[in-house]
């Protein structure tokens, strides 16, 4: 953990270096390790404890059995027979221990050479050191013994050597410790390994992000194709990046177009004013009509600029979701008002304008925006459509399932299929329409308005001509009381 306070505003300068413990993967594997180690330790401890209990019980039971046998001998033949039996049994396996002493503590029979003095004075079970008769050194062995006080001061000691048991317990403890150490070691190594694996892929993602922040929007996160969590994350990130790249590119295009399409009329406007000023400076007397013409052209140019700005704002607002009012709009009425407004224009141009509208196509929409969209479509059809005796423009309103479709169709040159998506962009004007007046914003606005109302603008071939369709979801018949709860 080197950099305590990295500058978040300076992502390009060097990577932040994080310590081992800052890694989420490492911390997670540590937690996992701790839980696993605790469980393993508990398991080993339980096994050791129960083994010990079983072994201890076994030796006590053996001692008890021996004591019962010797007790019978004692009952049958008194101390002499007991001493004889003990002497006999002491010849047996070395781990079975016996001792009979007199009241003076003198050994009468048995294979125990020496015991702690206080043990011989006691009565019951003891775990004590002892010396075997075969041994030469001091009391180095361990035994579990049962001490009985008999009549006449005699003492009977029966026991089992527990040296093996202690050795076994020691081995068990060591094995437990080794297992714990191994678990810990493997756990840490695994944590480090996982952290490194994860870090490698995370770092790759971080590097991509940094490259993108550096301005290369085409960069993408590498996807290994294993379909794991990282691939899923990578796919999501890549999808997001593609969307952002698209938006930024769109924004750039719009900015470029706005700059171009607004600078041109502004330049004209400025040139005209400068021209007039130069004429005055040179002492030339402009006629009243000429002065008026200059000013009128200037105002017309300004009006055009205002309308372009207005349309751009309307598009931007519609795209941002503003103005989504819920007026109940009857598309037939809307189409008829619009057609009636443009009827004289069509008539003067010799274009047959027809309306064929189905009744009761009600949509929930912003009435003003919708009227504007329809008026844009009509203006387009009237200016870009056919302009001779056979020219027709048809407005229809139809129901199509859950949608209402308002189409405006002409029989002019139409729009080639490859250009249909393009004309929806701002300021795009096709070569053949350059001679007609327009800003290239009409269809963009219609498209934005359609999307604002969860609809779509569809451009189709009217064979010949263009059929522009504004598709909008129909309002529920009895909105609110049909109980379906659907939107």
């Amino acid at each position, binding site marked *: 953990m080197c950099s305590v306070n990295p500058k978040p505003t300076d992502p390009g300068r060097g990577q932040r270096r994080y310590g081992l413990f800052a890694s989420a993967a490492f911390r997670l594997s540590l937690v996992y390790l701790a839980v696993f180690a605790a469980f393993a330790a508990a398991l080993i401890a339980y096994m050791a404890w129960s083994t010990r209990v079983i072994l201890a019980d076994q030796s006590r039971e053996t001692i008890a059995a021996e004591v019962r046998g010797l007790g019978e001998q004692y009952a049958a033949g008194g101390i002499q027979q007991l001493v004889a039996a003990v002497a006999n049994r002491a010849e047996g396996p070395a781990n079975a221990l016996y001792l009979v002493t007199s009241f003076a503590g003198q050994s009468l029979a048995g294979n125990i050479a020496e015991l702690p003095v206080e043990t011989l004075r006691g009565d019951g079970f003891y775990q004590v050191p002892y010396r075997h008769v075969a041994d030469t050194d001091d009391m180095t062995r361990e035994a579990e013994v049962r001490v009985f006080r008999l009549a006449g001061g005699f003492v009977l000691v029966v026991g089992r050597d527990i040296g093996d048991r202690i050795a076994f317990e020691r081995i068990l403890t060591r094995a437990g410790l080794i297992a714990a150490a191994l678990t810990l070691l493997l756990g840490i190594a695994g944590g480090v390994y996982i952290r490194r694996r994860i870090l490698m892929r995370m770092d790759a993602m971080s590097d991509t992000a940094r490259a993108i922040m550096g301005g290369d929007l085409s960069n993408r996160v590498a996807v290994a194709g294993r379909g794991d969590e990282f691939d899923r994350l990578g796919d999501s990130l890549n999808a997001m990046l593609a969307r952002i790249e698209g938006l930024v590119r769109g924004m750039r295009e719009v900015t470029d177009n706005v700059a171009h399409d607004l600078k041109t009329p502004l330049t004209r406007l400025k040139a005209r004013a400068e021209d007039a000023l130069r004429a005055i400076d040179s002492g030339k007397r402009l006629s009243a009509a000429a002065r008026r013409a200059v000013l*009128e052209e200037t*105002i017309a140019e*300004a009006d055009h600029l*205002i*309308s372009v700005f*207005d349309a751009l*704002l*309307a598009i931007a*607002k519609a795209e941002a979701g*503003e*103005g989504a*009012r819920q007026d109940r709009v009857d598309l037939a009425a809307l189409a008829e*008002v619009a057609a*009636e*407004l*443009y009827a*004289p*224009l069509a008539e*003067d141009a010799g274009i047959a304008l027809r309306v064929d509208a189905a009744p009761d196509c009600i949509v929930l929409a*912003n009435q*003003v*925006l919708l*009227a*504007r969209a329809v*008026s844009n479509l009509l*203006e387009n059809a009237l*200016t870009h459509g056919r302009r001779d005796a056979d020219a027709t423009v048809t407005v229809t309103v139809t129901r199509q399932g859950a949608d209402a479709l308002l189409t405006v169709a002409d029989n002019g040159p139409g729009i080639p299929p490859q250009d249909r998506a393009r004309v929806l962009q701002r300021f795009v004007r096709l070569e053949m329409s350059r001679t007609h*007046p*327009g*800003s290239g914003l*009409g269809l963009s606005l219609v498209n934005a308005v359609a999307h604002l109302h969860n609809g779509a603008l569809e451009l189709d071939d009217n064979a010949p001509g263009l059929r522009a369709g504004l598709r909008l979801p129909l309002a529920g018949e009895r909105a609110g009381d049909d109980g379906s709860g659907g939107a």
Partner: protein
Amino acid sequence: MKILLVEDDAETARYIVKGLAEAGHACDHAGDGDTGLEMAGTGIYDVAIVDRMLPGLGGLDLVSALRGRGDETPVLILSALGAVDDRVTGLRAGGDDYLAKPYAFSELLARVETLARRGGGNNAETRLEVGDLVLDRLSRKVTREGRAILLQPREFRLLECLMRHAGQVVTRTMLLEQVWDYNFDPQTNIIDVHVSRLRGKIDRDFDQPLLHTVRGAGYVLRESEAN
């Protein structure tokens, strides 16, 4: 006519006051909302022009306060926010008309004069007359010199609108709003075509033209070309 202008931009105010004076109207100017409300309270104004964005008391609050006092002085709201919903909120606050910046002065003048005249109450008259042209709102008949003139329903509404504002300039935007209920300007000058058709019906066969074009502003329906 006495007009109150509440506008914080001195340059715009100067230009409007000058224009209104040239059109023969006296205009007082207030630079902020509080002063504007105080001046409007004197009740001597025929119309108030109120900018929406004002320092201190905002334009809409000013209008609401005025209406709250029961003052019915017609108010024209000016705003740089032209969108439909801004217009709706403006009118809901008690404004009588709404004009988005940037506007032509002729548009402002036409709307102010219309608002001032609205108090006259000719909105309720059933019979409108300009010279020998008569429009009956109940029977929906139009005659000139006693001869019946046949009009399409929309032409009737267009003429009705012009006759209600007889003697005043009515702009294309006002006609779109009042006759077609369109609150935006179509790109083509479609209104000119409609007006020229109406002119063909009410003026062509008669010596004295009634429907005149006012250059750079709009149309006016009046008896003679004088003045």
